[in-house]
């Protein structure tokens, strides 16, 4: 056993990237999922008042991306050197930039404004982002975002696209990947990794 304990709600959410990395790396760990009722009491004990947290080597780490990066580095999914590590990091940061710009849209209360914002995501934001990511991937050789090998960046892009499709389908339909052949191929590759498939079949079924 790795001695790693990951704690989150019984959701994919902000813990799933870490879980996918652990699955791909075939690491045994404690996948702790708390009940909603236990949250209030637990929150007070947490360093940054948030989940997920990871307990490892006698300490607790918060912040989903820091946790994911630690796991990627420890289990060989962060490239072979610092430059490749940074190339993986920049890809993940680009996903977070997009997430930060589209999440507020669904939370917008003004219906008219919301409709305009959704249209912008559909016709500009998402297509531009996909085009940019395809160009980046192509510039790195077309197969992977960093180090010409599987890294957590590839897994992160895959997970983001899966989540985006589910959440945004009813609002703007499926993102158009027709002009993103390399990205499309990478998403298929990650989806079909044996360890990823095994995890997705075995993990608890949760709404998000």
């Amino acid at each position, binding site marked *: 056993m790795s001695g790693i304990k990951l704690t989150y709600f019984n959701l994919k959410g902000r813990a799933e990237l870490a879980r996918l990395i652990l699955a791909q790396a075939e690491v045994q760990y404690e996948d702790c999922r708390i009940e909603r009722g236990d949250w209030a009491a637990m929150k007070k004990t947490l*360093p*940054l*008042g948030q989940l997920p947290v990871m307990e*490892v*080597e006698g*300490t607790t*780490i*918060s*912040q989903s*991306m*820091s*946790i994911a*990066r*630690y796991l990627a*580095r*420890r289990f060989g999914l962060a490239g072979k050197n*610092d*430059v490749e*590590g*940074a*190339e993986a*990091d*920049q890809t*993940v*940061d*680009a996903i977070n*930039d997009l997430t*930060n710009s589209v999440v*507020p849209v669904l939370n917008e209360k003004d219906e008219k404004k919301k409709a305009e914002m959704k249209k912008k995501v559909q016709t500009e934001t998402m297509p531009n982002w996909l085009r*940019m990511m395809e*160009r*980046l991937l192509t*510039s790195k050789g077309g197969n992977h975002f960093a180090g010409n090998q599987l890294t957590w960046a590839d897994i992160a892009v895959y997970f983001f696209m899966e989540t985006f499709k589910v959440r945004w389908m009813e609002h703007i339909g499926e993102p158009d990947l027709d002009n993103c052949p390399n990205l499309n191929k990478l998403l298929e590759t990650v989806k079909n990794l044996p360890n990823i498939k095994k995890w997705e079949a075995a993990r608890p079924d949760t709404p998000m």
Partner: protein
Amino acid sequence: KHSQNKMSEIKLSYFNARGRAETARLLLAHAGVRYTDQRLASEQFASVKPRLPFGQLPTLKYEGELLCQSMSLARFLANEYGLAGRNSIENAQADEIVDAVNDMIAARVAVMQDSDDAKKSELMRKLLEETLPTGLGQLEARLVERGGQFFVGNNLTWADLHLYAFVDIFRSNNPEVLDGFPKIKNLTERIEELPNISKWLQSRPETVF
């Protein structure tokens, strides 16, 4: 890891602002590294933007590689110059602090970007009275838990410098932001006294943010 760097091999490009580049600049200053501190005017940016991998600044040209995304390139520099902690756990602890600071920065950016003025003042109030005090309180507790001197491993890391960069910008408009957080305040004062940092703070261009 690196002792000799030809200035031309390292180029940090951003606007003439502290913003999302200052953490990297603080790192380079502390490490005593010679680099080109490129500051683009808006028109220059407009012309290079289509060719940038993410259409954004900052970027870091480092020995032939172009790295993007402010936090990724800062982390890279921290790793190169021994300011990322001494092992994987310390790397992750530094990342965690940086992420927590970035949550506060994002909250602030959201307020600044809201175009609805009535909503904006309420959001600002919430930021100053709730979000920031909570976030700074958690960071203060983390700092105390680690011995009170530095956020990670009882040694300077980029986590300390990133917190400093955030405070540096925020207190221009809100000088009282660290009231009630004595350990963090003390850390920022000690950072300012580090010789290479002090030299940088005195010589850097003065900018609004």
